[in-house]
């Protein structure tokens, strides 16, 4: 949020008052939820449709126990939305709960999230109650006939066409252009190692076995690069990998040696 932006500066310059409006953030979610129960459920499956459907499909005596279950769902809905929103809101919420749980036998994370998205924080016991009541009801049905109920409601809102839905859209966004890394002393950065002892151990002891691979040129030792450069520059054609290796070995031995500078000088 706090990232400095050109358009942020332009905005705050041209409308000082508008900036305060963004403090509404918490309030707007609350308002949104209170509007949601009025609008979303209305589009879709209504409580009336559910009750009608059940009455059509089931025997009278089955309906007696089911009416209890329906009451449970309404009660749960009442606890979730609150009474102050009126009977219609409660019925819409009940329909929403029925829809949410009709294929579930327990309250999972996604159901909790869906209810919370719709109504805000709610008592989880009501969700459990609604879920149990719903599965008692749906146990009277085949999945097919339930599917028919939802098919019917889906068609009502399924034929809307979104503007631009057939338009090709690219998610490609402007990024930083690529540049070389921050240079060291004007040279492009290389990862170099000055740990000659380790280098010597890793690279030369194993190369002394018969199945020697051609010496890897991609090593990361500073000294290696320098020696190679020097040899290439002075001995151009004669410079071969083996010679580099020889010279490097000697140099590494000397660098890794514990002897004092004077002693080494004498050896040379």
């Amino acid at each position, binding site marked *: *949020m706090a*990232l*400095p*932006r*050109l*358009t*942020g*500066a*332009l*905005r705050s*310059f*041209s409308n000082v008052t508008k900036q305060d*409006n*963004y403090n*509404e*953030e918490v309030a*707007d*979610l609350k*308002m*949104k939820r209170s*509007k949601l129960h009025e*609008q979303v459920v209305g589009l879709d499956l209504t409580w009336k449709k559910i009750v009608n459907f059940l009455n059509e499909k089931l025997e009278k005596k089955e309906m007696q126990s089911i009416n209890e279950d329906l009451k449970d769902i309404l009660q749960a809905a009442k606890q979730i939305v609150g009474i102050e929103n009126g009977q219609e809101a409660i019925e819409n919420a009940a329909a929403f709960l029925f829809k949410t749980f009709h294929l579930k036998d327990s309250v999972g994370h996604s159901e909790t*999230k869906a209810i*919370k*998205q719709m109504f805000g924080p709610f008592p989880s016991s009501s969700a459990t109650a609604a879920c149990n009541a719903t599965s008692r009801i749906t146990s009277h049905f085949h999945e097919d006939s339930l599917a028919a109920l939802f098919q019917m409601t889906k068609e009502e809102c399924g034929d*809307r*066409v*979104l*503007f*631009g*839905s057939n*338009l090709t*859209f*690219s*998610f*490609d*966004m*402007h*990024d*930083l*252009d*690529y*540049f*070389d*890394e*921050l*240079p060291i002393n*004007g040279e*492009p950065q290389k990862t170099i190692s000055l740990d000659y002892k380790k280098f010597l151990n890793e690279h030369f002891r194993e190369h002394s076995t018969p199945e020697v691979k051609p010496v890897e040129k991609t090593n990361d030792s500073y000294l290696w690069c320098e020696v190679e450069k020097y040899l290439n520059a002075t001995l151009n054609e004669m410079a071969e990998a083996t010679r580099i290796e020889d010279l490097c070995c000697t140099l590494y031995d000397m660098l890794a040696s514990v002897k004092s500078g004077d002693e080494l000088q004498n050896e040379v």
Partner: protein
Amino acid sequence: MPALPLDQLQITHKDPKTGKLRTSPALHPGQKAERCFVLYKPPPKDNIPALVEEYLERATFVANDLDWLLALPHAKFWCQVVFDESLQKCLDSYLHHVPRKFDEWVAPAPEVAEAQKRLHRSVFLTFLRMSTHKESKDHFLSPSAFGEILYNNFLFDIPKILDLCVLFGKGNAPLLRKMIGNIFNQQPSYYSDLDESMPTILQVFSNILQHSGLQGDGASSTPQKLEERGRLTPSDMPLPELKDIVLYLCDTCTTLWAFLDIFPAAGQTFQKHDFCYRLASFYETAIPELESAIKKRRLEDSRLLGDLWQRLSHSRKKLLEIFHILLYQICLLPILESGCDNNQGFIEEFLQIFSALLQEKRFLRDYDALFPVADDVSLLQQASSVLDETRAAYILQAVESAWEGVDRRKPTDAKGPPGTGDLNGVVATG
């Protein structure tokens, strides 16, 4: 019967109080649905589950509402757009706060990325629909009313247009060019808005200089404020401050460049404020100082400074490209188009722009490396038989002398954008 434009269309509906039928304009507050859009908030910087959930809730609200909006019939859509203030705030909050690709630091969780994508597309389509005055044969607005509606209801403003360009310009350039072009065409007041925004844009550059302890070029005319005195330079300031300055510079350059890339016709308005010169002199003052500070301080936090270096290099290139777009738009393109007559004015403009910045040697050098000045001068020579050769030669000589003492590595790679890789070749000496 031929279809009427929406702004003249009347509809009959029942008066809720009296129950009588009444006619009223189709574009009417009463036709707006109660929807209540919420504001957009960007995803959390680190993927803390609670924050992610909070983000997702908000994002889902916005995305669902936009889907609903895009599905509305033409007349209803426009009623909502014009009369629903919460919708406009929501769109504005998205454009303002959505992360740009270049300022992302942490990879978002997959569901966050998914939600972002959905929003990104819907927001673009909403703006596309708002910038289209003729949606179909039967559904359209008369151009003049369209221009009025856009402007008077703040459906578009300069910050939003800049945001749109930087957010969607890379992937959807052709469509965005049409959109922005259409808006400016139908409502020329946006040119004067842009004109009025220019001082603020220039102020951003001066602020960057002031915060870096490098005097802005406005500083000589206004007395220096007490609290600005003795600001720390980039070499001494706290690292977070340096970071802020570079991020701000990077966003500013990228946004301006993205806008001019989509809508170069804005060039004239920029140049009314002497933008080319201001840009070059800003470059000359700020870039070398920031560069050497970043180099010098690299060991304080090598990852951060490496990143700032990338951003600074990127900003430099964008500054040079902005300059080139302006120059091309103001002088070179008119010369190419006008043939041999009547191009004296444009040639004069070109010569003046360069004459004004001959002492900005570092700028000249970097610009010349990316867009060789000699090429442009030879274009002028071809276009006019009466070119003032002395002045042209003087400019070329100034460019030459800007290179003196510097290892000149011109871009040799003919492929790709000119000079992309070679900018770093000329920075070593400052």
